[in-house]
Every structure is written in structure tokens, then in C-alpha cells.
């Protein structure tokens, strides 16, 4: 969270709505530990990261959806037999993210 604080403060001063995505759990090989955070504002500007650059693009889409619908949700990225996991981590692990609007 620390590395994105200055961006968050700037966006808050500008009155931007912000979605926060935090890594809450990692299975197998994952590049970032629980607590790694990424924020997306209503314009689609990004701060921070939750992986080594593998899933950030998909997180932006999910985060903007959170803002649009004012919802909170868990999102999982990783290798799986399930075709639904279109986006994976190149390191082969699975990360679980919690996404929510920064309204607290």
C-alpha cells in the first residue's frame, strides 16, 4: 500500500473515484506477497502492481467494473483447466485479489 499512497492522495484531492485491488492470497509460485496493492481511478490511470506485470491489464478491467457497479469482489488469476482463466501468471502460480471501491 505504501508505494501507491502518494498517487491515492493526489487522486483523492482531484476528487477521482478509485478502486483498490489487493493481493490477499497466493498459491504456488507468485511474484508478490499478500498486501501487494494496485489502484485504478475512474479515468483508468493505474498505480502499483499485483504481479510481475502478467495480470495488471485484466485487473484494470475488473477494477473499472467495480467502480461502475459499486461492487466488491474476489478475483482469481492463475493456471487452471478451466478455459475461463484466460489470463494467467507466467510463473504458474495462482493469486487471489480482493477488489473494492476506495469508499471507506
Amino acid at each position, binding site marked *: *500500500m*505504501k508505494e501507491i*499512497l502518494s498517487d*491515492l*492522495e493526489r487522486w483523492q484531492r482531484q476528487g477521482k473515484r478509485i478502486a483498490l485491488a*489487493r493481493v*490477499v*492470497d497466493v498459491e*504456488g*509460485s*507468485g*511474484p508478490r*506477497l*499478500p*498486501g501487494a496493492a494496485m489502484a485504478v481511478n475512474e479515468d483508468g490511470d493505474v498505480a502499483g502492481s499485483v504481479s510481475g506485470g502478467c495480470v495488471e491489464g485484466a485487473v484494470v478491467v475488473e477494477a473499472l467494473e467495480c467502480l461502475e457497479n459499486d461492487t*466488491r469482489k*474476489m478475483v482469481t488469476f492463475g493456471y487452471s483447466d478451466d478455459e475461463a482463466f484466460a489470463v494467467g501468471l507466467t*510463473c*504458474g*502460480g495462482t493469486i*487471489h485479489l*480482493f477488489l*473494492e471501491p*476506495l*469508499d*471507506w
Partner: protein
Amino acid sequence: MADETPIFATVQQLIASEAPGALATIIDGGNEASPNGAKLLVRPDTEPMGSLGHPDLDRVVIRDALGELASGTSGVRHYGATGEARQDDLSIFIESFAPPPQMLIFGAVDFTAALSRVAKVLGYRVTVCDARPVFATPVRFPRADEVVVDWPHRLLEKVGDDLGPRDVICVLTHDPKFDVPAVISALKTDAGYIGAMGSRRTTEDRNRRLIEEGVNPDDLTRIMAPIGLDLGGRTPEETAISICAEIIAMRAGRLAPSLRDSEGDIHR
């Protein structure tokens, strides 16, 4: 959740001031009383902020959050609706905001300046300590958070009890007059890494003096000396990298070979 409570503003202050705290968030399985997104901010010796929706749940999570904070870890825990153990109705993410780990560097030498720079990049709070006021100046160590003019063992008498497994002591004095009492004091702390600079001959000489001073020979195995990984570097900056690499490897319990020559997942 209590929308009127500015929990995030408090989290911002906490992180900015490097004060300890842990934020619990319901991330899955929420119900009407305890919805997903409900938050509880826990700080040592301070009233908690927010609520997860039930006083029994709050009480259990406060206890667990203080435990996560003490070890500096973050993760998901599962509870029953009112905090029961061995149930998994609610998934709660507890995120620790632990103060940065400390690195104490004894000896105000060129290697100290380079080491303080690399340690800051890794997120350490860096204190440089040397008894010689001519050398121990903030101008020489602009990246250090604190420069203390004192004997290292006297500084450790003051702050040694606060050091834990995440903290690091690097003795770079390589002068027996300073580094023998410094290492003796360092061994009394719970610091996770104690390293001492010097040639193999200096190291043997220091070990002999330490045993003469009454140090248990078994405790000498705690001291990484000569300090650093065998990278073959020569400059202060290269030496700083080898010291910090050794600190990371020791924390992770690795032998630190090259990735090419080892097997298995890169992130374990």
C-alpha cells in the same frame, strides 16, 4: 460497515508515520450484519476503528490481527459468523502495516555509506553508529535515517531490546576495540542477522577475543563473518550488495546459489 469512519485516512497516517497497525477486511462470505468490505483497524494500545459487524467476531479478529502484526505478515483467515474457530463462513483478509525493519550499521566507513544506500532501497530504517564524531556525521551518510555518535555497545544497551527477527546488525568497524563489545551486545539481541566485516584472519582473531570475553562458542555460529556472499565484488557498492544479498538469503533460509544452478520454482 461504518461509512462515516475515515478508516482509510487513518491507514494513510499510520503508513506515513511508520506506526504499526493491521487492517481486517471481510472479503468473502459476508452477510447482512457483516457484509463483504466491512473493516476493522487494529493498533497496539489504541482503540480499534470500525467493526466487522459483531462484537465477538471483532474480539477474535483483534487478537489474530495483533498476532499477524507482531510477525509482520498478512493473510486470509476463516471464521464462523460470530468469530468461531474451525468454521469458514467468513473469509477475512488481515493486512499488517508493520514498521520498517531496522538495520544498525556500526562503523562510519566508506562501506557504511554504500550499505546505507542499498539498505534504504530494500526498505530498512538505517542507523549508523560510530564513537568518532569526526566520521559519524549526517553529511557523510545522507541516506541514513539516524547517525549516532556513541560506542555501538552503548547504543545497543538502549535499543537492543527492540530488535527482532526482521532486524539486522552489521559491524563494519573491523577494529577489535569497537567490534568485540559491539558483537557481544549484538548477540544479546534477537536480531535476525548479525554480520561482521573483516578478513579471515580478523575473523579468527575476533572469535578468539570473543571467547576470551566469555561468549559461548555456540553463539559464534550466529555471526556472519566475514560478512557477505562470495560474489567477488570489490567496491563498497558491490560489497553492500553482497551483504544485503546474504541478509535476504538468510531470512529466506537459502544457500544463495545462482538460479541457473538450482532447481524448482523461482518464487517459493
